[in-house]
């Protein structure tokens, strides 16, 4: 059956090698099984590539995916996903961005766009309603993301939305980002390099169609509930007074207060100068506040530096993750320098998180005498040096000198240099995000099990962050509240991380924002079961048990993608900094992260064998992933549950 409501029912395929495109139907059975967005992209990617494909080869597809909620006016549902095999990690690559581009893809008539092959010359893909054009873009190659966006909007019109790469993606920097409409970023896992490898400078989209709703009256009732939650509900005021007023930078001093603010390459989790990078400090530079499509939280800020060394800096953000990566992580307390470096990364198309962690690796190696001034081209990589950080960013994007090695990401860089492995902070090759598993134990599990590596967006739990007892009681039972809410205890963290990972697998497939689902924890499985049926007409989405099953299916499929690449349990380890070096200062002083008990508990809830790290065959059968099991059996002996 074809899809009528919540979906366009169409997948656009574009083959850049052959300069041709075609449209395939999105079958209802697939939507029922994987929902859309990230889940559907997982199914498509699994089927399009074989294990071992080079992420920078024409054989690696790039998938732009929307979900049923995208463009359907549900607040917090303006986001979309970009999926491919990651050139940074060689495993599952996924990133999400907000703004207005995702809804426009739906309005142009497509749920998903799959880009195949590789162009011989730089091109942009232009999607204008039903029309598709592969637009010669040689003149755009070399431009930064702002100039590229300006050029394309000047050529096609200001009502077109643009996602593009900058010089970093062109140079195949393995942590290159994709920038959407100037300020939104597909930051993680280096998907900008995948675009660069395809010589795809940009994707431009405009649409004028609409998203049809199955039961408009019932759907409006759900939207009214969302309006109430955002304007009058119990989380409305905190969300507006923290996220709305300060954006994600509201987290800087809060995370410092609990001893979980990464400082000096994650040496510690507390910094006495953190207030210089706080949300209210950043407010002084804010020139506008905006939102993603149809969102009431409005956490997006644009900042401008009007005086001094960084005068003229004007960019979206910086967000919490970028402030930490480029600020406290490098002991840089000049917020103007952080705003500038954030802009530089956005213009070049670099992931700020990975960039910051590559720089802090260099700084620590320099401090320990493992990298010399000569190797850095005469640069002194001293903690707190804005000049060193900015120079290194420029060297990375141009692949100059040691920048050519650093452009490979912190894991490869430490391997090539053969030094400072212990200061190269990553999990599965993805540089760690702005948390610390010593001060928030569940983060250790989150990072270890995430399919894309050290990740804060696939299963980060917030009930234990500042202790939200009511939510913990509702979701996990009153008897578990004390342990669940204790961020320094490993107990029940397998349970809550598994639950959050399932929720986010669904959230990333619908697609909704983490704000509203991660924090504040306003929307849970029961809400999604109310949202989807009147939107899509798919009654099965109204059953919470079924939604949980779909979520588990998506999580397992992505894990199996990594297993097919030969990456499994042996990769679920944390840098020794978090497991062997006790937190030296601050509220989490003396803590280390003991991963093993959390991992065991998590495996139990997942239905995976702890010894081999493989899912039990029965688990895959229960989830309808027999086709996945059959392929994995070519590589592994899948364990079976022992009965009796």
């Amino acid at each position, binding site marked *: 059956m074809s899809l009528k409501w919540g979906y366009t029912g169409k997948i656009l395929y574009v083959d850049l090698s052959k300069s041709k495109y075609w449209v395939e139907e999105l079958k209802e059975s697939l939507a029922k099984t994987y929902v859309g967005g990230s889940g559907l992209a997982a199914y498509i990617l699994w089927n399009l590539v074989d294990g071992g494909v080079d992420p920078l080869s024409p054989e690696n597809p790039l998938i732009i995916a929307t979900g049923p909620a995208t463009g359907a006016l549900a607040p917090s549902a303006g986001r979309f996903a970009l999926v491919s095999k990651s050139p940074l990690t060689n495993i599952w690559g996924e990133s999400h961005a907000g703004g207005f581009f995702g809804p426009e893809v739906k309005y142009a008539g497509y749920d998903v766009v799959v880009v195949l092959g590789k162009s011989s010359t730089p091109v942009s893909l232009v999607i204008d309603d039903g029309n598709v054009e592969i637009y010669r873009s040689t003149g755009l190659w070399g431009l930064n993301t702002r100039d590229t966006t300006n050029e394309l909007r000047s050529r096609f019109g200001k009502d077109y939305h643009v996602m593009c790469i900058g010089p970093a993606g062109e140079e195949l920097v393995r942590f290159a980002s994709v920038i959407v409409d100037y300020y939104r970023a597909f930051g993680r896992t280096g998907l900008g390099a995948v675009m660069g490898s395809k010589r795809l400078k940009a994707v431009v989209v405009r649409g004028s169609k609409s998203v049809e709703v199955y039961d408009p009256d019932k759907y409006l009732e759900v939207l009214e509930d969302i309006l109430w939650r955002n304007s009058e509900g119990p989380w409305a*005021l905190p969300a507006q*007074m923290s996220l709305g007023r300060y954006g994600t930078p*509201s987290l800087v001093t*809060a995370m410092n207060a609990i001893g979980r603010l990464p400082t000096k390459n994650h040496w510690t989790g507390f910094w006495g100068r953190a207030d210089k990078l706080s949300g209210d400090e950043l407010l002084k530079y804010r020139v506008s506040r905006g939102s993603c499509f149809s969102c009431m939280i409005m956490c997006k800020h644009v900042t401008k530096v009007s005086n001094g060394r960084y005068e003229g800096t004007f960019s979206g953000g910086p967000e919490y993750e970028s402030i930490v990566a480029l600020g406290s992580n490098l002991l840089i307390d000049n917020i103007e320098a952080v705003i500038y470096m954030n802009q530089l990364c956005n213009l070049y198309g670099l992931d700020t998180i990975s960039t910051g962690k590559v720089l802090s690796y260099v700084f620590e190696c320099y401090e320990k005498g493992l990298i010399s001034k000569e190797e850095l081209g005469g640069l002194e990589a001293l903690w707190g040096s804005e000049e060193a950080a900015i120079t290194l960013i420029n060297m990375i994007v141009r692949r100059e000198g040691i920048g050519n090695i650093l452009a490979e990401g912190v894991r490869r860089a430490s391997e090539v240099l053969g030094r400072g492995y212990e200061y190269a902070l990553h999990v599965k090759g993805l540089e760690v995000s702005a948390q610390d598993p010593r001060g928030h134990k569940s983060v250790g599990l989150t990072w270890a099990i995430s399919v894309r590596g050290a990740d804060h967006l696939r299963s980060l739990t917030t009930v234990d962050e500042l202790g939200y007892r009511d939510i913990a009681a509702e979701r996990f039972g009153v008897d578990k509240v004390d342990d669940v809410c204790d961020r320094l205890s490993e107990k029940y963290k397998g349970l809550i991380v598994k639950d959050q990972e399932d929720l986010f697998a669904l959230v990333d497939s619908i697609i909704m924002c*983490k704000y509203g689902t*991660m924090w504040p924890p306003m929307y849970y499985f029961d809400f999604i079961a109310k949202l989807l049926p009147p939107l899509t007409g798919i009654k099965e989405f109204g059953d919470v048990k079924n939604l949980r099953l779909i979520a588990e299916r998506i999580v397992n499929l992505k894990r199996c993608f990594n297993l097919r690449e030969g990456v499994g349990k042996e990769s679920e380890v944390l840098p020794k900094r978090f497991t062997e070096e006790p937190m030296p200062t601050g509220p989490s002083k003396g803590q280390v992260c003991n991963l093993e008990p959390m991992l065991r508990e998590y495996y139990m809830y997942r239905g995976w064998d702890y010894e081999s790290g493989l899912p039990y065959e029965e688990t895959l059968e229960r989830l309808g992933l027999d086709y996945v099991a059959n392929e994995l059996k070519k590589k592994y002996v899948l364990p079976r549950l022992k009965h009796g």
Partner: protein
Amino acid sequence: MVRIRIHGILKEECGVEVIDIEGTYLNEIMSKLPKEVKNVLMKYSKYLIVLVNGRRVYDLESIQLLPNDYVDLMIPVGGG
């Protein structure tokens, strides 16, 4: 002396970031806060998060503090 640190919107509305107060119990210390600060905390009382040395506390009366302890006051944030 116990150090009170005030964050985010509370800091903005109170107009103060750090206050040092003498006292043994948390509720005693809170009662010694300046009136303007107490008014702001009252306004956000439904949402107020109190941390003592980085750990969240719920029952202010029973919390005994030592000199050099610090108390953080904020409204809910999360997710980073």
